[in-house]
């Protein structure tokens, strides 16, 4: 009996901790929202962060996008040729990428590659009192350190997702058209005919914008609120990757249901 009560109590505590975490993140988001526009008075800071988070993530995004495209081409060809529909390979690859895999996989990779780095950097600045030093120099760390990193991630994710999809479509072309002999004109033609600019491309873009915002918020929040110890930093970076990944996948389901659900 006691074990059951303990288990329920533990579950309750876990839930309360989660709610508290979410609440303090929401408060932080409000605080951050106030400085997001003023951050643009120093566009160089933001550009630097787009470079650090976005440009330096290009390799992993492009390579991964290529491989995903190749796999989609192979699998798609196998399935579609059963129905004599292999000329639809292009649109299948493109829609999978633009609607789902581009935004989601790019966001997951970004969280692991750049989100964790943002968290670690901010947490280390906190641990070494650099954030406190800024405050005492009458420079708001939220505006000077956190804001630009938020924008850097927020801007990078949609751009990386677009590149991921593009490279993936080319990967599908290489396998489908060059290797397996699908008709080149129908590969591109079907994409042009059947893909909707607003519904498909727009939907994917909105998704990756939302993912960018969520990852950016989680990354800077976890760093800013990290315990200033070695294990605190480790926990914060792990938390960033775990929370970002779950948030992206959960949000993806909700957004897909609204956008593409019946």
């Amino acid at each position: 009996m006691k074990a059951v009560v303990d288990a329920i109590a533990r579950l309750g505590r876990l839930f309360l901790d989660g709610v508290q975490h979410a609440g303090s993140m929401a408060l932080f988001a409000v605080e951050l929202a106030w400085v997001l526009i003023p951050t643009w008075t120093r566009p160089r800071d933001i550009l630097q962060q787009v470079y650090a988070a976005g440009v330096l993530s290009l390799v992993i995004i492009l390579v991964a996008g290529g491989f995903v495209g190749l796999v989609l081409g192979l699998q798609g060809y196998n399935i579609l040729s059963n129905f004599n529909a292999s000329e639809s390979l292009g649109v299948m690859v493109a829609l999978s990428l633009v609607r789902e895999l581009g935004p989601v996989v790019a966001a997951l990779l970004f969280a692991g590659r750049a989100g964790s780095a943002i968290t670690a950097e901010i947490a280390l600045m906190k641990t070494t009192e650099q954030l406190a030093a800024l405050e005492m120099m009458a420079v708001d760390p939220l505006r000077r350190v956190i804001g630009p990193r938020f924008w850097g991630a927020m801007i990078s994710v949609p751009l990386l997702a677009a590149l991921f999809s593009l490279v993936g479509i080319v990967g599908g072309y290489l396998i489908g058209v060059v290797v397996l002999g699908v008709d080149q004109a129908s590969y591109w033609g079907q994409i042009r005919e059947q893909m909707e600019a607003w519904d498909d491309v727009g939907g994917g873009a909105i998704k990756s914008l939302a993912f960018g915002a969520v990852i950016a918020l989680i990354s800077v929040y976890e760093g800013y609120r990290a315990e200033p110890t070695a294990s605190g930093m480790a926990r914060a970076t792990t938390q960033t990757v775990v929370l970002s990944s779950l948030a992206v996948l959960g949000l993806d389901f909700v957004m897909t249901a609204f956008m593409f659900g019946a």
Partner: protein
Amino acid sequence: MSERRDTAAMIELDGVRFARGEQVIFDNVDMRFPRGQVTAVLGPSGTGKTTLLRLIGGQVRPAHGRVLVDGIEVSRVRRKALYALRRRMGVLFQNGALFTDLTVGENVAFPLRAHSRLDEALIERIVLFKLEAVGLRSAREKYPAELSGGMARRAALARAMALDPEIMLYDEPFAGQDPVSMGVLLRLIRRLNDALGLTSIVVTHDVSEALSIADQVIVIAGGRVIGRGTPEEVRAQREHEPALAQFLDGAAEGPLNAAEDEAPLAADLGLGGDR
């Protein structure tokens, strides 16, 4: 202990109470830091010396009481006024807190670039002057990771002085320094204070160093002030205050650590029987 009424106090703590969770760090504490003088705040580790500096800088607020800096109540002012006040303070953090991605020169230039519209050539000159003042002109292009501990602290000092503050706060400036760099720092703190007419607060647990340069000394332990006055006066107070005597002598036994292990060891080991 008679309360020193000094109308020329630059910084005042008035009945300040501050607690972190259950732990009371300051309990109804009064302190005065006279203008133009070096005041050393001494106390065992963990007595809230750093918290004192954070109270003065407005990074934390007291539960009760007032913290006044040049007549302005730090714990009440709005953010803009607080930032204006902070621009008049320089803080030397315990580990320097230099920005690791910037060179020493850029670190010193940082507050100037953030708060002034001076042109680059002038900023370069000011940076050179500040670095010269701490004897680090040659380290301008180096990154903080390439500096020794003592050099890093002096570089941080140059940065703290960049905006010509009226108040300098030093957080454990001597911790982990070799005797030579300690001597250099001591002389710098004294010289800068006198040459620039600053009000300095040095928070430390190094008794002899602090007594050698301070005009005023405040000793805190257990959330209250256990000694204050000039170094001579504080030395004279030791007879009335056993905790002060223990701290000044660095004695292992005494009232400061009496409370630590009052529960018998046997009880913690579960041998007491009635646990």
